[in-house]
């Protein structure tokens, strides 16, 4: 809240302008409300469903099996006796990328819709509107947790012995993707109030996202098919970097560390991706604050 400077003794000291919040900082100060909104979302989503939260295991599970059979076996990406050129432990390679991209898709998709979905409330009561995109991201992180546990269990069966650096890289990779999703979620969430096309644009973007990062294939394919410049552009995508940190942390330790990371990955591309996602978040916040003044009348 912004304090107005007034001369004393006229009874106006301490008056503030309502409806002008501090953006994401207000979300930090209303953590309890954030928690209640997240709880509500989880309770409401699986209300009346028999297997409840299990759906967040079933959906990626089925997706994984389909991709594994179609790409790993039919299209020969999996390394085997007959196919020595493929990726060793392709199942783990695939799953470690899928869980992160799924988190990104769910987070961005829901955050983009969150403002319009909560329009009834936003029109009537003032509260920091950033709460809605942020709670959408939070809910997706809660759905991400069981998937990462399954991934770790699978890795342990495959003889997983990660180094501290590798685990740290995965944490940084997750942070990059989460910041990116929050920034884009603020942008598309706010634009969606004015143009409902935004959510369709996001759907399109998410469909491309799975294929524009090395989830199903290895990054080396990009270099071999399109050359070094194309690879550099490819690595500018923070989602690509995020996925590659997950491969580094979960898949490489099970594949005898034979596969290499892209050149200067940890020293150059990870910092660039982190910077890009922070810039996205700042831009998202600025745009959101510009547009939120008219949410109540546009919804």
């Amino acid at each position, binding site marked *: 809240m912004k304090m107005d400077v007034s001369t004393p003794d*006229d009874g106006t000291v301490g008056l503030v302008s309502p409806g002008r919040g501090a953006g994401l900082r207000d979300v930090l100060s209303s953590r309890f409300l954030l928690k209640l909104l997240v709880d509500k979302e989880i309770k409401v989503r699986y209300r009346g469903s028999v297997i409840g939260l299990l759906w967040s295991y079933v959906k990626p599970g089925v997706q994984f099996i389909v991709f594994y059979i179609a790409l790993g076996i039919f299209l020969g990406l999996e390394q085997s006796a007959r196919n020595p050129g493929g990726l060793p432990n392709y199942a783990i390679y695939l799953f470690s990328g899928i869980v992160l991209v799924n988190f990104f898709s769910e987070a961005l998709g829901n955050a983009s819709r969150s403002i319009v979905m909560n329009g009834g409330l936003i029109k009537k*009561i003032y509260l920091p509107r950033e709460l809605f995109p942020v709670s959408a991201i939070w809910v997706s992180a809660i759905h991400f947790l069981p998937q990462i546990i399954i991934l770790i269990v699978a890795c342990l069966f495959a003889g997983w012995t990660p180094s501290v650096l590798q685990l740290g890289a995965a944490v940084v990779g997750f942070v990059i993707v989460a910041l990116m999703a929050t920034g884009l979620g603020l942008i598309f969430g706010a634009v969606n109030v004015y143009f409902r096309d935004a959510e369709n644009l996001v759907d399109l973007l998410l469909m491309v996202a799975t294929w524009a990062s090395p989830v199903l294939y290895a990054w080396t394919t990009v270099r071999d098919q399109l050359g070094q410049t194309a690879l550099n552009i490819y690595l500018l995508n923070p989602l690509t970097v995020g996925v590659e940190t997950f491969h580094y942390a979960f898949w490489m330790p099970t594949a005898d560390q034979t596969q290499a990371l892209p050149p200067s990955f940890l020293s150059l591309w990870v910092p660039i991706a982190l910077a890009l996602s922070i810039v996205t978040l700042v831009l998202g916040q600025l745009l959101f604050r510009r547009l939120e003044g008219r949410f109540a009348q546009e919804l």
Partner: protein
Amino acid sequence: MPISIDIKSIEKRFVLRHTRSMKETFLWLLKGRRGDLYKKFSALEGVSFTVEQGETVALLGFNGSGKSTLLKHISGVMLPDAGTVRTRGRVAGLIEVGAGFHPDLSGRDNVFLNGSILGMSEKEIREQFDSIVEFSEIGEFIDTEVRFYSSGMYLRLAFAVAVHTNPDIFLIDEILAVGDEPFQKKCLAKIKELNEAGKTLVVVSHDLDMVSKVCDRGIVLERGRVVMDGEVGDAIAHIRAS
């Protein structure tokens, strides 16, 4: 008395947009149909007044006169295009019954969610919880999902949460029309009690008899302008005469 609400010459124009599709916007711009994209009209024009702490103000006027829009500016939901709105302390109220209630959650969850949305801390809600349930007369149904509530129960719980937020400025928009006679009386008593404790009240209502019981001052709006500001009796007479 210190000033509780200070409104200085605010303007609000609404844009009626005729399309929400990027394709149509683009096509219409190309075809030179820019004028068809939107129409503007003024919802508030040059509205200024101050309310001192502890005053009870009724905003009166016919449908479309800008009363609810003005209330939304005081709560911060809307921002003025020009002019300033300033308030002191926590603003809360019933802008619409049960905004922020979720039908699939239990009454208990909704008390926490709604209380928190209206600006209460976790500690405040826990302290006030029993009192809220008692005031609402919901009793054993507090753990039932709200969608099974009757409209009266819904209203009572929403009102109970709102009055327990302990706001400095309490905004009420057309809510006492619902609910049965005894509960209405109870609400009026509670509103009076809040006022005696020094809270500022701003009420929007078409129920002129209720308004004359609750408020001392009346502000009449006509097409977004203040046309009368004075004793509530005079304001009601002005409305009835037009």
